[in-house]
């Protein structure tokens, strides 16, 4: 999917599927072992304010584990692990070199919002699932540092607040639930110096794929030198030789810009 889409070949139906998106992006990123990329990425994952200050997921992990995500020995990506509480899209398990491993549960959305209301609130359910890691399948170390990341295309503050209210809103809960946008992935890749040729290739491909999907932040309007120049005289072809019977098409296009686009 990734290479095909980069080159303009894609299945339209798949473009609206968050599962395809998650699979395509993280199916490649799982080959990026613990290193600067993951710290850069989760620095963009931010909590709801705790005493007026947002914390980011990378800092939270650093404080709790004593080291950055890049200092762990290995990364396992577990896609769609089935749980009693539902099926999150992805669990990233960073392990080794530290006494406690880190479990990051990711719920990804493309166009939809989270599922469930009230008690059934999806993110609240996943926070509860992370409270009892022993119940997860496959099993993960019960003493792992856990957090949930809600990955969306738009700002998701409202949804996080609802989930926190449902789960039990306090500082500890806020430190374990983060919002992240797909667009942040490009920023994280831009900030990363790859450790190997393979990492370089993977990150470049993921960046190209996300750009094709327009999953990047606004980065300025086009500069004048890339916009075609149009002169007043360029509109004269419409006046000279009608392309169609002008009685059958609307007149008054001049209202768009009186200087160059005349239909009558």
């Amino acid at each position: 999917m990734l290479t095909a889409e980069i080159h303009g070949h894609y299945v339209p139906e798949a473009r609206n599927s968050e599962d395809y998106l998650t699979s395509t992006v993280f199916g490649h990123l799982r080959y990026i072992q613990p290193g600067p990329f993951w710290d850069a990425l989760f620095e963009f994952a931010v909590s709801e304010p705790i005493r007026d200050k947002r914390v980011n997921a990378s800092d939270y992990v650093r404080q709790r584990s004593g080291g950055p995500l890049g200092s762990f020995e290995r990364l396992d990506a577990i896609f769609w692990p089935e749980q009693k509480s539902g099926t999150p899209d992805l669990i990233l398990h960073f392990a080794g070199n530290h006494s406690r491993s880190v479990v990051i549960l990711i719920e990804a959305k493309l166009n939809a919002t989270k599922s469930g209301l009230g008690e059934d609130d999806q993110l609240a359910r996943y926070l509860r699932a992370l409270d009892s890691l022993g119940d997860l399948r496959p099993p993960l170390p019960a003493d792992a540092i856990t957090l949930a990341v809600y990955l969306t295309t738009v700002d998701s503050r409202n949804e996080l607040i609802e989930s926190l209210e449902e789960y039990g809103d306090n500082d500890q809960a806020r430190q374990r639930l983060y919002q992240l946008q797909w667009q942040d992935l490009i920023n994280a890749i831009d900030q990363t110096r790859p450790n190997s040729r393979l990492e370089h290739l993977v990150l470049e491909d993921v960046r190209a794929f996300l750009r094709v999907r327009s999953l990047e932040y606004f980065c300025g309007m086009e500069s004048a030198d890339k916009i075609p120049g149009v002169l007043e005289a360029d509109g004269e072809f419409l006046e000279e030789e009608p392309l169609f019977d002008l009685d059958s098409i609307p007149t008054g296009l001049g209202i768009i810009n009186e200087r160059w686009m005349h239909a009558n």
Partner: protein
Amino acid sequence: MPTEAGQKMQQCLNAVCRMHASVSKLLTDFDKYVPWPSASVFGNTATKDLTYATKAEFWMPEGVFRYLSCKENPRLVQAITICFVEPSIEEPVLLIGQLEYVDDPLQVRTACDGWDLWYLYFPLRTPWPDGTPVSCSIPSDRAARIRNATLISAPLYSVCRIGDLGALLERLRGAQCPAEDPEGADQ
């Protein structure tokens, strides 16, 4: 046989499509800069009043908008509008505004109109200083719905990075606004 005029027109159309793609990102990213948790008044809808009719002057949207209502105080709305097609403008215009509505736009469907910022700005009063927040006089046909509004404008193509949008919003929030010139409003 390709024609020069047609190729130029195609280049223009392609540039317009690229402009729409950039503006779409701008609308989406606007959410991040609103200072409070919010809900979109019009959901994912960014424009309206397009004609599908065969007989039309044009089919392009005249503008696009996004209105975000404050979760704590839903009558308070921050909004962004981009104006593409209006006879009096020389280039696309970005408008950002903060409005206080009489009713909660999330509850009362008619409380907020996607073109509110547009009609606070047009017909263009001169001079309307770009980059300076202005406390708007509310047109009589909107005064029953809008309690007050502050607006800041900028040429769309002067926005080089998302930080520029943040800076405009900061200016809007911290504004000690001059009131709109009532003489200009009568023009």
